[in-house]
């Protein structure tokens, strides 16, 4: 049971240090280090990405083949697309259809003869002339679903006939990755195919077999993982001195190790290859797997 009179003399100091660490490693500096300036979903496969603190995650990302990065930012909420990229060729119809919220003609900056943007988006205008700003206009579908979930599922799935829990649960990127990595579950690529910051509710990276994104609930969690390499903090001051704190610290540790080892084991698996053929029975398969892991330098002390 519990010894409530026990006090740890180092507790206060450790706590201060912990707080300082968090101050100096702010959300902003993390985003700068990652090279992104907003949250949403981002896909990475590049050595352009450098974080100040080395971690298994950033190292894995740095090892992938191409330097092309696609960052998907999903803004949730309402937005009038026609007031964002304004069809100036049909300005009268546009203004008539939204009498209270249309952008006055005097505040529209021309991009082409057909389209303009509101003056508050003027910083995008030079990007347009440099060819760095493109827009896909008027995307939508008939009979729009008013459910938040079904609505966003439609956009993630892009298949109007089978969406949501009642239909095919896949996203357009997930199906793309399924083609890129037909053997993903058995031999996944060394770096995560995608990193998703935000809910695991989103379908975008969901394929038939699995979700292709390394998912974190929010950017703070990704920051924690990238910084510490672990999912759950184990600092002593987080826990009380009683059995509950002790058990929770133990379980957090095992959860961390589980995440960590599954990564390490996979790395070894990828490095190793069996030199001889094994028989097709379950014991031989176990031996084959162990041989492969050993060959891949998985530093096991005992099996």
């Amino acid at each position, binding site marked *: *049971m*519990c*010894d409530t009179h026990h006090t740890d003399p180092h507790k206060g100091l450790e706590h201060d240090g912990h707080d300082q660490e968090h101050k100096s490693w702010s959300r902003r500096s993390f985003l700068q280090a990652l090279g992104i300036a907003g949250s949403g979903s981002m896909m990475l496969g590049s050595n352009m990405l450098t974080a100040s603190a080395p971690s298994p995650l950033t190292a894995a990302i740095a090892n992938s083949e191409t330097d092309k990065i696609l960052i998907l930012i999903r803004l*949730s*909420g*309402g937005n009038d697309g026609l007031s964002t990229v304004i069809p100036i060729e049909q300005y009268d119809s546009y203004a008539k259809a939204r009498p209270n919220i249309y952008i006055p003609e005097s505040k529209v900056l021309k991009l082409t003869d057909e389209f303009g943007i509101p003056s508050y988006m003027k910083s995008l205008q030079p990007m347009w002339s440099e060819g760095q700003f493109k827009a896909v206009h008027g995307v939508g579908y008939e009979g729009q679903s008013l*459910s*938040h*979930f079904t609505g*966003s599922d439609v956009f993630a799935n892009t298949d109007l006939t089978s969406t949501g*829990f009642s239909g095919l649960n896949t996203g357009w990127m997930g199906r793309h990755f399924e083609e890129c990595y037909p053997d993903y579950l058995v031999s996944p690529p060394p770096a995560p195919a995608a990193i998703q910051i935000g*809910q*695991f*509710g*989103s379908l975008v990276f969901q394929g038939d077999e699995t979700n292709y994104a390394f998912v974190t*609930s*929010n950017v703070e*969690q990704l920051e924690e993982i990238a910084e510490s390499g672990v999912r*759950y903090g184990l600092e002593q001051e*987080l826990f009380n001195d*009683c*059995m*509950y704190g002790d*058990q*929770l610290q*133990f*379980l*957090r540790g*095992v*959860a961390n*190790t*589980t995440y960590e*080892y*599954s990564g390490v084991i996979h790395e070894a698996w990828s490095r190793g290859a069996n030199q001889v053929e094994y028989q097709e029975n379950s014991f031989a398969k176990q031996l084959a797997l162990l041989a492969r892991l050993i060959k891949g330098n998985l530093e096991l002390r005992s099996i």
Partner: protein
Amino acid sequence: MYSISYSYVNCLQRNSLGNFKTFTSEIGITDAMLYYLDGVYNNGHNPNENYARELYELFTLGEGNNYTEEDIVETARALSGYVERGELGCEQVTFDPEKHDTDSKTILGQTGNWGYDDVINILFEQRPAEIAGFICKKLYEFFVHPDSNDNAGNAQVIISGMADTFIANDFEIAPVLSQLFKSQHFFDDEAIGVIIKSPYDFYFNILKESSFSYDDTVLASLINYSGLLSQRMFDPFDVAGWQRNRSWINTNFMIGRWLTIETIMEEFFNSDDEQFRAFGLSLVSVNEGNASNPDVIARAIIDFILPKGLLNDSEYNKAYVIFRSDVQEQYYEGGSTPSWSLQTSMEGPTQVYLLLQYLARQPEFQLK
């Protein structure tokens, strides 16, 4: 038709809240025990000590607790004779007086021509305090706290009280449990959430707590999953039984727990997503307008599912974000007439589902 399994389970069920002395007497001559610990080979001319040793060490007194090797040898002789096996599994093992050792034996200081019933009587008459202490410690560690050796001796005081009740009631189990479950100590904050769920706890606690509907197929999967996580009913690793607590947890079992609970939740959702809404609503007082506040509902669910909630505010906030999900902020912020509520919003079931999936992965979910 005779069945070893039936008579064994039947013995456990009849005696689990009955009299421990009767239980001890009956279990020793079930076929399950006679075969498992070699009673069927305990011939008076060639005694087998296996059961006699475990009767004292594992089942009643505890290792080396006021008995000797000589007591084991003599007890084995007194227990001899249940060796008429017949056809395994079809015919009940019976006592053959010819195979019983009829010479004099000295057990726990008592000398005579002892047989099976005498062993049980002598044991409970000569060692009541040892039995009561050993069994009550097991009950305490099972129901209250895995560590009964605290420095302050609080647990020992409780166990002694239970043991006194056990002896005063002639080894009836129910009065002891009744006293324990009604004690203030049982509800102490420090005794909450300190036991690591066994695989059966892991699956069946959430089944009971959620009141989600299930059928025999679901039960069969849960039983199968428990087996994968090393708890196969009536088949512990060895005669000492499951060692419980942290032995249930390693990285392999952790992954197993995560993946299986995820599948189970998904099946519940696919079979009837509205039961997730109903579960959420059952935990808040709708009259107070609480069903329109997502964080209040999320907190109620978290605090109901996890024995002591989440570790700190930061962890709560992560879970709130999960529950708020894709519903836009303005639907939560309608002042006196918010447009989101768990009763009416079509997203409600999904939100509860996402939160439960998230909670089921948290380290706290392993505790009860």
